[in-house]
């Protein structure tokens, strides 16, 4: 009976499909316990905000338009101290906020990519940094509540020598590794030496090579760091970034492969507030509370979970349904500023957002490629940019034009000065120069600047303008469009090339670009970071090795200068050189919109006074319980 045979075959085929499904599903990746975010009901209207802290104050305020909310951005960053504090805070006393904390809950975060190293010393970026402070402790950290102050983390106190050539740390007697062994000065010395190892990838912590001459450990509680010169101003600021993890010598030195041992997280032994629990590569990672954490009363949440998420709609939905509680930086959460605005709108009163201190949005000019080998062309590009428009349109009005060093700091010129620089000038309806032009609608870019840019191009042999390309990642499209418009006004016809991050990074490294935008932040806000990172050969923002001998010389002098005012004067000279020479990198604006979002139930979080890299710890955060 052919009909029946056919039916039997069909049934067999369907059975095979289901069998395949079963087999396939059997072999699925291991799933950790299903730990969902708290139920939506807990986000009811009667959830009462605490009566303290700025975050709570914001949460209580009526819902505002995104642009309005942005204007509540936190103050501009405080800078590195001129020299390491002579002595450090003793953390043996339990901070008063610990008694107010609530225990339990899961802190869920999202990142745009998975971390590549659990070994904090090898970490380069926020996904690694966000875990570094969860798993490890450092010698010092920023006070999680008063974020401008550097306090001891693993140390008990510190003292700088009279001549400024050494600093002595006393290790905290209670500090211990997860395996119960005490944290000693030997561990700290081992870890700092590891940070300075040459020939090994040390993207964030290799900087200590510039400062440290040697280290001594007279006893298990004492670490003496001897500097190459007195009082390196940026040293303690760098020490307070999350990547400066102190690692256990007794574990790593005895491991078969100390370079990579901790990159298999099952091997991790640290002293931090959370212990590694699980990692599904490319998807999520979880750490659980270290019940035996040496800091009394901490941490508060049971688990920290980070999910790799790249779909903006899903991210916003996850925040709305309380699957996500924290996004610590716009770009690192896979969001553009526009996306972040949508998130702010969607969260309404249920979210609290912060804008950390300004970060640069910068332009790379390939000074090794024609026509940008000509300084006049670079100057024309520099002057042509309508910085105010970029801030108003792209950065929601919250920013400062891209002066060479972070604004409103000892490193930078005051507004009265920079508002008169070519490329930074704006005039009112009468053609009068306006100094305080930010936030005003009645000013336009000084026509004299536009003429100057055109003249520079003509002098360089481009009276009819020139054709070039401007590339950058899609999340920077708004910036690219703004620049393209500015360049067109003076005759620079820039073809936009949106490219992915890997291509962007590769092109910058290999010099296969003309003009390029590239997102990044700074480890700390200090001239040492700015100069070595952006304005001197070898820096990651100066891959085309633009160089100025005078700047190199000033760097060597200023890094040893303990008087902040004198240091500032030297940096002002650098500013002048940079404005005249136009290196291969310069900021377009310093903008505050690299925001972080928290569910309003997340308490005791304070935005960084320095950089995001100094504020990634989670041990002080609690989640408001019902």
């Amino acid at each position: 009976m052919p009909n029946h045979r056919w039916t039997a075959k069909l049934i067999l085929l369907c059975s095979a499909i289901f069998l395949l499904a079963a087999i396939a599903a059997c072999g699925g990746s291991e799933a950790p316990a299903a730990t969902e975010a708290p139920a939506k009901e807990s986000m009811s209207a009667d959830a009462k905000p605490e009566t303290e802290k700025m975050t709570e104050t914001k949460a209580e305020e009526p819902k505002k338009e995104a642009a309005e909310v942005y204007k509540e951005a936190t103050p501009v960053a405080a800078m590195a101290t001129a020299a390491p504090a002579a002595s450090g805070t003793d953390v043996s006393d339990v901070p008063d906020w610990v008694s107010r904390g609530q225990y339990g809950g899961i802190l869920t975060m999202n990142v745009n990519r998975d971390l590549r190293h659990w070994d904090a010393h090898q970490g380069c970026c926020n996904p690694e940094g966000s875990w570094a402070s969860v798993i490890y402790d450092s010698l010092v950290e920023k006070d999680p509540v008063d974020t401008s102050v550097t306090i001891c983390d693993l140390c008990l106190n510190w003292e700088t020598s009279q001549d400024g050539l050494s600093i002595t740390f006393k290790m905290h007697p209670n500090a211990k590794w997860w395996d119960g062994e005490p944290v000693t000065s030997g561990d700290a010395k081992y870890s700092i030496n590891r940070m300075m190892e040459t020939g090994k990838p040390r993207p964030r912590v290799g900087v200590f090579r510039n400062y440290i001459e040697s280290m001594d450990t007279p006893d298990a509680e004492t670490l003496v760091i001897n500097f190459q010169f007195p009082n390196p101003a940026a040293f303690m600021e760098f020490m307070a970034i999350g990547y400066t993890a102190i690692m256990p010598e007794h574990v790593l030195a005895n491991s078969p492969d100390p370079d990579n041992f901790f990159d298999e997280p099952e091997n991790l032994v640290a002293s931090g507030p959370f212990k590694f629990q699980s990692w599904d590569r490319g998807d999520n990672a979880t750490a659980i509370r270290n019940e035996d954490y040496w800091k009394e009363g901490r941490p508060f949440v049971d688990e920290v979970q980070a999910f790799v998420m790249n779909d903006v709609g899903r991210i916003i939905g996850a925040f709305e349904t309380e699957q996500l509680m924290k996004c610590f930086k716009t770009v690192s959460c896979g969001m553009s500023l526009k996306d972040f605005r949508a998130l702010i709108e969607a969260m309404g009163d249920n979210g609290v957002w912060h804008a950390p201190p300004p970060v640069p949005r910068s332009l790379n000019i390939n000074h090794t490629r024609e026509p940008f080998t000509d300084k006049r062309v670079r100057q024309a590009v520099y002057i042509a940019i309508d910085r105010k428009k970029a801030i108003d349109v792209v950065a929601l009005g919250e920013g400062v034009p891209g002066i060479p060093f972070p604004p409103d700091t000892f490193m930078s010129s005051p507004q009265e000065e920079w508002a008169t620089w070519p490329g930074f000038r704006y005039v009112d309806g009468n053609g009068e120069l306006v100094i305080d032009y930010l936030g005003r609608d009645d000013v336009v870019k000084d026509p004299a600047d536009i003429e100057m840019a055109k003249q520079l191009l003509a002098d360089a042999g481009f009276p009819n303008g020139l054709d070039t390309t401007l590339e950058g990642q899609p999340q920077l499209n708004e910036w690219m469009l703004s620049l393209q418009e500015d360049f067109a006004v003076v005759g620079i016809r820039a073809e936009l090339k949106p490219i992915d991050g890997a291509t962007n990074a590769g092109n910058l490294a290999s010099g296969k670009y003309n003009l390029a935008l590239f997102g990044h932040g700074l480890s700390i806000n200090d001239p040492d970071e700015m100069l070595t990172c952006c304005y001197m050969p070898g820096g990651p923002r100066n891959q085309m090795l633009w160089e100025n001998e005078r700047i190199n010389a000033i760097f060597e002098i200023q890094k040893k200068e303990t008087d902040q005012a004198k240091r500032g004067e030297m940096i002002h000279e650098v500013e002048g050189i940079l404005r005249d020479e136009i290196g291969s990198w310069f900021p377009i604006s310093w903008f505050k919109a690299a925001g972080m979002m928290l569910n309003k139930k997340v308490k005791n979080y304070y935005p960084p006074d320095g950089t995001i890299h100094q504020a990634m710890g989670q041990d002080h955060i609690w989640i408001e319980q019902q």
Partner: protein
Amino acid sequence: MTVYALKRLFLFIPTLIIVSFVIFGVMRVIPGDPALLVLVGDQGEGSYTQEEYDEVKKKLGLDKPLVHQYVNWIGRVLKLEFGSSFFYHNLTVATELKARMPVTAQLAIMAVVISFIIAVPLGVLSAVRQDTLFDYVSKAITISGVAMPTFWVGILIVFFSARFFDYLPPLRYADLWEHPWHNLQQMIFPALALAFNNMAFTARVTRSSMLEVLREDYIRTARSKGLVEMVVVFRHALKNAFLPVITVSAWQFSRLIGGAVIIEVIFQVPGVGRLLIESVLRRDLDFVQSIILVTAGLVLVVNLVTDLCYGWLNPRVRYA
């Protein structure tokens, strides 16, 4: 049939060689230096020295000539060692594929089964009730399904379920057999998003195939014999109209095995598609090359099985 199958299997070899050439070449031609990305990350936040750069390049084997790199890779593939990650210590392609392939397979099977279950009755009824209100409504649904990109359907599902029902599938993937309810919660929405497009296409194919068959002489004969309409439709017409439907479903399955990339990203499904896109973005060369090669092999196998099934289901089909 055995000879035919052997011939087809033999043809796999040149196909896979061509695929390996193309993917190896493409990954070398596109910009983006893996060594640099290891050091600075895709946001370029880290710094490095030339010495560190050279060291990483050497460690990854990228300092060697391209021919050497290709031979090295293909040699390992022949030994079924597909390589390891440039970015993660001790992470091999085989390990990741073993973990991720079943996830994608589950998603693909769920999508195909759901679409099949909906599409066939819809297509049959549309054909049987041609030019009725039901047919028009069905047409509107299926044309929408074909026209709406899968990712858009996914976004709509996320938006409506989050905004109006305060619900989204769990973020964290759970194994079907260990946490079936959790797993189904996570997989049902992406499966539905994928199934909608597949369903629409399959329903369209079913309808047109049925319409063609329903005009055949033997259907008229069956009706003239006085057979009830149900028997005519399901025993005589659907049976013969089914072959193209099965072919289409098998093709859809092999397409989904290749990775429902965007849907996996939207719904946080840790499948092959997501692995592939992550690997491309971080220029994890061994991963990209091997995933593509393995996927191409799987697609070839699925196509072969489909062709063999086709002949098995329809005895009129004979293989030369």
